[in-house]
């Protein structure tokens, strides 16, 4: 658990450092996610070398367990920031109604457009394969 968590934190640290150093507009943790992905690919491609070199918790599934534990409670992690936002709702006061309309309509449109595009393109590709 600790070894797995250490690797996850190290990936985030490296991600944050890279984001700051290069100035790319991607959050550090997202770069960390990409780095962890690279680690997983390399680890499984050279499984035998990895089993010999890496600490056992990184190869026996404990690392994945730590990740699953974090993701299972993703909702919880938005609570502190969200509670702070509630206190700042006054910034919405002046344009409150207009902003509420925009957020709801724009979010619905975005959800629908994204999902429909996904479904149409994947259907179109499948029909292309069948022909």
């Amino acid at each position: 658990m600790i070894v797995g968590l250490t690797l996850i934190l190290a990936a985030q640290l490296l991600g944050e450092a890279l984001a700051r150093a290069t100035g790319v507009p991607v959050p550090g943790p997202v770069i960390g996610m990409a780095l962890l992905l690279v680690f997983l690919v390399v680890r499984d491609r050279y499984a035998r070398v990895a089993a010999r070199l890496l600490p056992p918790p990184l190869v026996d599934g404990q690392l994945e367990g730590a990740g699953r534990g974090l993701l299972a409670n993703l909702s919880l992690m938005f609570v502190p920031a969200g509670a702070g936002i509630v206190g700042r709702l006054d910034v919405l006061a002046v344009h409150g109604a207009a902003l509420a309309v925009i957020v709801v309509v724009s979010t619905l449109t975005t959800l629908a457009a994204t999902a429909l595009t996904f479904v149409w393109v994947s259907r179109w590709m499948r029909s292309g394969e069948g022909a």
Partner: protein
Amino acid sequence: MTGDFAVWVYLSRTPLLWLTVTLVAYVVADRIATATNRHPLANPVLVAIALTAAVLEVTHTPYATYFEGAQFVHFLLGPATVALAFPLYEHRATVLRALAPMLAALLVGSVVALSSALTLGHLLGVPRAVIVSLAPKSVTTGVAMGIAQTLGGDPTLAAVLVMLTGMTGGILVTPLMNALRIRDMRARGFAAGLAAHGVGTARAFQVDVVAGAFAGIALGLNAFLTAMLAPIAVSFLR
């Protein structure tokens, strides 16, 4: 009476109390969600935030005091984002097969999110500085605040709008997808992550692991694309 008060004064100043309050609020919210069969309106993020905010309001606790305790939970957002690599890796075959639909949906979704917010803001007569803060509303908080600041908006307002968008998306995604008869979990998850960032991703994970994996990808890709597109989109505003 004074004794009770002394205990309260002591406890309300330690991280322990507010960390516990956050966790209790979440456990209660999660129980409500489970009891209602994960009904979209019983979104645990929304319920837990409402409960926590109510406790803070009733006890007149400043947010800074609360955050001293809650920061331990808040901190985990970073590692949890990194951990999105696991479902992504586990479902890599499914993800790689869906590369073309994903990229198309990313481009369309990102452009629709930006243009719909800017157009509606313009039509409803919202001032430019507010519209600019509205532009990155579908992007994860940290990046959205950065985008708003760069473009001359208000980062705090941007953060509020990001959270509102997240909760709106988290609540509406399931009924909307059912109404549109979209049963493809990849498409549903991808849309949730793109339109409603981490809150949408959390919702997607509650519904389906594959949906969660796709939501995670969408969250990351859209943060990047919106940061690129927002300055261009805003330049169309007068």
